[in-house]
């Protein structure tokens, strides 16, 4: 059946089963391939998008559960203040290696920073431990989040 979802501010209508995961609607139906497939079971975080700003694993989010929530993907996260800072820090710190997981890492980190301008190490652990990086860029991800937070100023 047809579903209309708002992706990066644009209404998109797709005709799929209601239990189709949002991940595949984005990637295969709408052609937005920035959001990645890693596990299909919310174990790795590669597919993370935002639903009304909350980091969400799109691989287990069915299209019929999205409703009117605003879907934000890696393709548009740079339009948000937190996303922009995170992307810049990612490049400044040279976080990225193979890069495949980094869409999800950036989505998780952007949500963290949007809700917590000055995350502590424990906050970073909580927010980021659901995102696996097989290249092991964790040390730099932590550094980049802290660098992005610094640009929030001290009083944040």
């Amino acid at each position, binding site marked *: 059946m047809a579903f209309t979802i708002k992706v990066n501010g644009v209404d998109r209508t797709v005709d*799929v089963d209601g239990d189709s995961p949002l991940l595949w609607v984005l*990637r295969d139906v709408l052609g937005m391939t920035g959001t990645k*497939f890693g596990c299909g079971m919310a174990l790795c975080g590669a597919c993370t998008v935002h639903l009304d700003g909350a980091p969400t694993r799109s691989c287990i989010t069915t299209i019929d559960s999205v409703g009117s929530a605003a879907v934000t993907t890696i393709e548009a996260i740079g339009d948000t203040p937190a996303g922009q800072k995170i992307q810049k820090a990612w490049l400044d710190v040279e976080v990225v290696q*193979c*890069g495949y997981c980094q869409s999800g890492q950036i989505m998780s980190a952007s949500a963290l920073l949007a809700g917590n301008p000055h995350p502590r190490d424990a906050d970073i652990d909580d927010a980021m431990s659901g995102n696996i990086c*097989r290249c*092991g860029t964790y040390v730099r991800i932590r550094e980049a989040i802290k660098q992005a937070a610094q640009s929030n100023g001290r009083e944040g």
Partner: protein
Amino acid sequence: MILSRRSFLQAGAATGGGLMLSLTLPVANGAAEAADADGFAPNAFVRIGSDGQIVLTMPYVEMGQGTYTSIPMLIAEELEVDLKQVRLEHAPPNEQLYGNPLLGGIQATGNSNAVRASWQPLRETGAIARAMLVAAAAKRWNVDHVSCRAQSGEVLHAPTGRRFTYGELAADAARVPVPENVPLKRPEGFKLIGTPAKRLDTPAKVNGTAIYGIDVRPPGVKIATLMQSPVFGGRVKRVDDTAAKAVKGVRQIVRLDDAVAVVADHMGAAKKGLAALVIEWDDGPHAKLNTKEIAEELEKATLNSGPVAQNIGDVDKALASAVTKIEATYELPFLAHATMEPMNCTVHVRNDGCEVWVGSQAIARVQAAAAKTAGLPLDKVVVHNHLIGGGFGRRLEADGVIRAVQIAQHVDGPVKVVWTREEDIQHDMYRPYWFDRLSAGLDEKGMPIAWNHRFAGSSVLARWAPPFFRNGLDPDTTEGAINLVYALPNLHVEYLQVEPPGIPTAFWRSVGPSHNVFVTEGFIDELAAAAKQDPVAYRRALLDKTPRAKAVLDLAAEKAGWGQPLPERVARGVSLQFVFATYMAQIAQVEVSKDGSVRVRRVVCAVDCGTVVNPDTVRAQIESAIIFGITAALYGEITLKNGRVEQTNFDTYQMLRMNEAPAIEVHIVQSSEPPGGMGEAGTSVIVPAVANAIFAATGKRLRKVPVDSSVLKQPV
């Protein structure tokens, strides 16, 4: 193809036996046949358009290791262009042009050798192109070329301040005779090499625009996913696809001999269709196979002697005279690669040809495998290589391409075959299982006078590149077990090739050393313990003839604060190696909880990899390799039960996560030696460092990974 007439590679026998290819620049009729109407392409790696666009063709594929920055740095250094001026292209399959000289001419990215293989020839490539551009400018100005110099993509005539861009010179440069000898810069003249140049591949990787193999979308592409026989070697007996076909979006079910695929409009529908299939399998000859039997077979093999990989002195005699004798056996498990980008391949089979989109470490093999499977001549198969979402050796294999072509032969139009994570883990080709048997003899001072090591396991190289497997030995399987950094007066190493039934094996990050360094660095630690000596001091006493090894050991020990007190059940462990032409020492600081769980808190690494091309990439690769190795040390294990891989996804095949990641420090030794490999060395060396730290913290010697926490519980 256009470039092939302009450059060719000369094959000759290399010392050491492999086929060595050396780059020879075009010499047709004494002048470069590099003249396009409007461009300059002096060789297979550099192309300069009259519009000024500088395109570098990358013979090695980017999978995170930074090769799309370090290789351009080599060319750009001598070509005198800024990295931001160049555009990169993946090389097409063409072993003549893009074969890896350190892999016998196979067009492959692996064994941490892209920089090593490119260091001389690709700097020469850049230098010759630059010399031709300078000559073209000098001719136009009618001045001596010595008065001209190249800089940032331009040629300048200093006395008059005149300048031409490379684009303006491209057409003329193409008609300049190719110089015979162009001197390369001396290290003190390097502008790029040795600097932490920004990676060229990253901007697209932070905004979702980078295209990996899994992201390609040829017009009309369908998405397929598959289930292969759960037991290797099994067959499909019967399929009931009634329910699968009824799933909305499912277009077609493809039945192969040993797999079934569901073709759909999107992966969600394909997966739903797959779950709805009822498949009956004939499990075949391996239906009852368990890991235990494979391990027992290997253990048994090490009771007999095998081909000698290295012999120094007389081990038997030395053992007989030893004051102390030590024996041990070590074991390492099968491991999956678990690249974050699951296996995938997109194929369009037409009547007259075949097109393949994939991310591959060995693109020419992809072409050959697709051609063979489709029954087409090589030149009818077009392969597009892509960024790789994690290679680690997995994408040196073409098994996924073969499977995708088999499916695509049944599909009208292009089809993207995407493995589920479960299929990816359960139908990987695995790091081999190893069984090692060692004995050593110590003299009255506790120093080793005999070292005897025999091991059994699969030779990946014997399958992947048979010419390298000779007299029962291959250079990969034994790397890290022979030519040890330590002065061992009597040493004997034997390898027995035993191919396990019912489970395919392949290269895995840090390859042979991933096994050997765990064993040798664990065993040397055992000898130090038996001699009641400090593990660093003990190793150090054996390094007088390997000063670079001693230097990295000293540096790591100093930076780690070796010897400084730590709390109870927290300890440091050391490990040292010389593999991939790189010296590396690591010290892991590990905390073992009362319940036996292990946390690696800090890792200090000292590395001497010769000349450093990009120090930030060196650091990044070591950080990466350490995390990769700790994952293996703490969690990595693939097991077979009744022929089936028991692990399925990241819940049962765990990865290290952010909350478990240690602090990592990398200290680089300045050196002007030729570059060593960097992509893998950090993985092999960390695993024994962790095991040795656990021994220091608990007194438990782990001779098998992954760590068994149950033996590390603190007695109540």
